[in-house]
């Protein structure tokens, strides 16, 4: 299961700060929702179904956007390394 690094801080408005590197990012409300679900320990499958029920979007587009976003989290080392395997 993927986990957002414990010390990464995110505000309700979507300001994300990684205290390990000093990098900060701006995340839109959908991104904030995904990060919160990851924080809650939800699996990728659970996040997929949650997203499909919340938004008017087809499964393929949602999958592409979700993987893009997760790729971004990995690229900026916001996810714990040992938890990167897909569910």
């Amino acid at each position, binding site marked *: 299961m993927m986990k957002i690094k414990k*010390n990464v*801080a995110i505000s309700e408005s979507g300001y994300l*700060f990684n*205290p*390990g*590197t*000093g*990098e900060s990012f701006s995340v839109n409300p959908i991104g904030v929702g995904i990060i919160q679900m990851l924080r809650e320990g939800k699996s990728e499958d659970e996040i997929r179904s949650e997203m499909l029920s919340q938004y008017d979007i087809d499964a393929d587009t949602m999958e592409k956007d979700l993987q893009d976003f997760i790729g971004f989290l990995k690229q900026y*080392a916001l996810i714990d390394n040992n938890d990167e395997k897909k569910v």
Partner: protein
Amino acid sequence: MKRRYNIAVTGLNAIDSPGPGIAVIRALREAASFDVKVIGLAYESLEPGIYMHDLIHRTYHIPYPSAGVAHLFERLSYIHSVENLDMIIPNFDAELFPFIKMASRLAEAGIRTFLPTLEQFEERQKTRLPEFARKYSIDVPHSKALYSASELPDITSEFSYPMVVKGKYYDAYIAHNPEQTYAYFTKISAKWGLPVIIQQYVQGTEYNVTGLGDGKGRAISIVPMRKQYITDKGKAWGGISIDDEELFSMTRRFISATRWRGGFELELMKDSSGKFQLMEINPRMPAWIYLSVGAGQNIPEALVRLAMGEEVQPYEHFEVGKMFIRYSWDMIVDVGEYHQISTTGEL
């Protein structure tokens, strides 16, 4: 009642590429454990700190290090006779050598310092960085000290472009071709003398660490910072305190292996593979030292306490995500003050 110290500080050039003096003074004035009267020591009449009367009680001109230790000692003895100094904090790389040389004579006169030993100072010189890195198992980019321009044509066998051309105390330029390397070599050697250092350029993100070693191998403070805004001179105009375990452990290793005494700054580059490369070790506090106060570790205060022979415990509290943002500020100064410091050497 708190003890009151008379402390002389150099590096009052709070200009676009500032000396650390004003930041050190702000930290001293916020010290919780003592009160301070600050005496400024300046080389030039236009160093802004001279005119910051709310921070500095009185400023004196001192001779450049190139004038020799004897002249400097004589001038400091005079200042001491007027101001009864408890301590001097020198803040420039180029003046550290004479101050280290004079430290025992200053101590005999009752003026304390808390500086690296001559061996520590020499060992971390830019010219000896590769040797230093091997000894303490720290990654550094390949570098070489050149003592003559005639060595320049041969460096392409060891270095690829771009490469960094550095002065032994100060200045660094990125050269993209042989013509630029030659031009920077000439410019730097004219200003700072020889050798000039060639260092392989590393692409990456700049991180700095400041800290304080007690001279017995213990780290009293470690404050890592990521540069957020960099000027055309490569100086941080904004930065943020960070919590990177690798930077903490590398710095602890540096302090314990060298038994570093005093303040310092490590300049590092995180390369594309995520590895930290040590670019430089500055044997004094950096211009951004006031961030240490913001992050909960007043390094200048702890340095004074160590100099006074107190038992100082390592700081434990450290605030991550504290930023510094530098700014410029025009002071209005009466020409009479400029006249006074220029002619009498005191203000």
